[in-house]
């Protein structure tokens, strides 16, 4: 069995002007593993994900997928790499100009030589996997509720049966029941695909449900990483404050003192 991690980040640094958002991120995700990166707002979770996906270029450090360096990778090469990737965006990011089934079948129609009818049929099957019926197929994404949009986004993310799936705040904006449904669907889909998954979230319930392992990011660094079962006994005051949701502790929250004064 290969010991090469599926995703490997070493010393990743990303700055926006004088502000250092990522300050040397080190993280490994093994093949078939599901890892959740947790952290407060503005801690650099989304930037980490965008750097891995190549949507942003880090100033320093190395990001490898399957042992291949992806920082400053040529566009064509990255397009090929992206074919093994699925991504569920925070607000689903469905294409307004396409119907639900066209969204789900977008990559299918792009890579495989299938006709419109077959693509639609495959989209219906993927929608069924996330609990949606054929009746939503021809609807415009703008007509869907938040939970349904997330489900369609999930169906689109898994449509090409990717080896690597990313989830950006999958439960944000959903009520707790719908949030739990989405979490369960993510677990089911990732298991069925046998994929490696990386989730960023600040929802601890979601992280506990989805992940095998959790990494906590704070001030642009991974301050703790370990199995889900160990997070309640991490011994790390930053992690403890975050999972207990306490105001007092080592985590510096911008404007907190002013707001509570």
């Amino acid at each position, binding site marked *: 069995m290969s010991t090469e991690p599926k995703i490997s980040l070493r010393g990743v640094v990303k700055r926006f002007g004088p502000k250092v958002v990522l300050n040397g991120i080190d993280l490994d995700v093994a093949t078939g593993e599901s890892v959740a990166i947790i952290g407060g707002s503005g801690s650099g979770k989304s930037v980490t994900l965008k750097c891995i996906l190549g949507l942003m270029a880090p100033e320093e450090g190395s990001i490898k997928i399957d042992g291949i360096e992806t920082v400053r990778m040529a566009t064509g090469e990255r*397009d*090929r790499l992206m074919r093994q990737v699925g*991504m569920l965006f925070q607000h689903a990011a469905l294409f307004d100009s396409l119907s639900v089934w066209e969204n789900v079948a*977008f990559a299918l129609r792009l890579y495989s030589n299938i006709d419109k009818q077959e693509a639609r049929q495959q989209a219906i099957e993927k929608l069924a996997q996330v609990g949606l019926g054929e009746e939503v197929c021809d609807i415009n994404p703008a007509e869907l509720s938040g939970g349904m949009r997330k489900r369609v986004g999930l169906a689109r993310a898994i449509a090409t049966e990717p080896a690597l799936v990313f989830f950006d705040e999958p439960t944000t904006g959903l009520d707790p029941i719908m949030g739990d449904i989405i979490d369960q669907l993510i677990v089911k889909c990732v298991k069925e695909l046998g994929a490696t998954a990386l989730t960023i979230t600040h929802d601890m319930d979601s992280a506990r449900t989805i992940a095998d392992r959790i990494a906590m990011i704070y001030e642009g660094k991974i301050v703790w990483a370990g199995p889900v079962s160990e997070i309640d006994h991490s011994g790390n005051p930053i992690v403890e404050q975050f999972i207990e949701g306490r105001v007092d502790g080592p985590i510096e929250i911008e404007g907190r003192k002013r707001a509570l004064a």
Partner: protein
Amino acid sequence: MRWNFLALIGRVVLAFLATAGRLAIFTATGVQHCFLPPWYFRLIGRQMMSIGYYSLPVIGLTAFFTGAVLALQIFIGSSRFNAESAVATIVVIGITRELGPVIGGLMVAGRVSAAMAAEIGTMRVTEQIDALTTLSTNPFKYLVAPRLIAATLMMPLLVLVADIIGVFGGYAVSTTKLNFNAGMYLKRTFEFLEFEDVASGLVKAAVFGFLIALMGCYHGFNSSGGAQGVGRATTNAVVSASILILTANYLVTELFFAT
């Protein structure tokens, strides 16, 4: 105080150069994707409909009234030295060489450039462009190239229609209001019209079409900051497309004038 003023000038110049550099890279990348496969013919066709067919009412109305006003104004001016017979010739040359492409370009800039910036800008702020990338689709190939191709191809056709309707506007006013003989007016219209008059207008139209799509895509692509950012991108797209149309109009005219 003096140094602060110099620093301000420096900042403005640096910001201008940075924008010019970004625009040059964006243009080069967009043009490159117009010539390299794969081509999304369905998207090109959809853009051609949106830019060409749906702009026809705006172009038609504008051209008609421009031709009509031109005939009235030239009649007033030329009657001062008994040259009323030149109205038809000046209307057709004015419309084909200048007013058809420029007025048409400005109208399409208002309609199309704004729509492109708003659509692509919304896609940017709602992460749809990022989603394209994660679906291994190059946003330049999917969003920018079809718009550049469609606008560059459709603008000359629109201007050709504008030329015909504009000349008809002049004809309608001249024959109904200024008592011109219809046959004589048409004879005068085509008597001194040369191929170059129409061709130079169509070349201008192609350049304007490219600029309109480029500005719409560039500002949409680089929008940020939610609804306000999209609004800003839309305004910037229309303003910059209009300025570039007027600048390019002079440069292309100069080019044709020199040859």
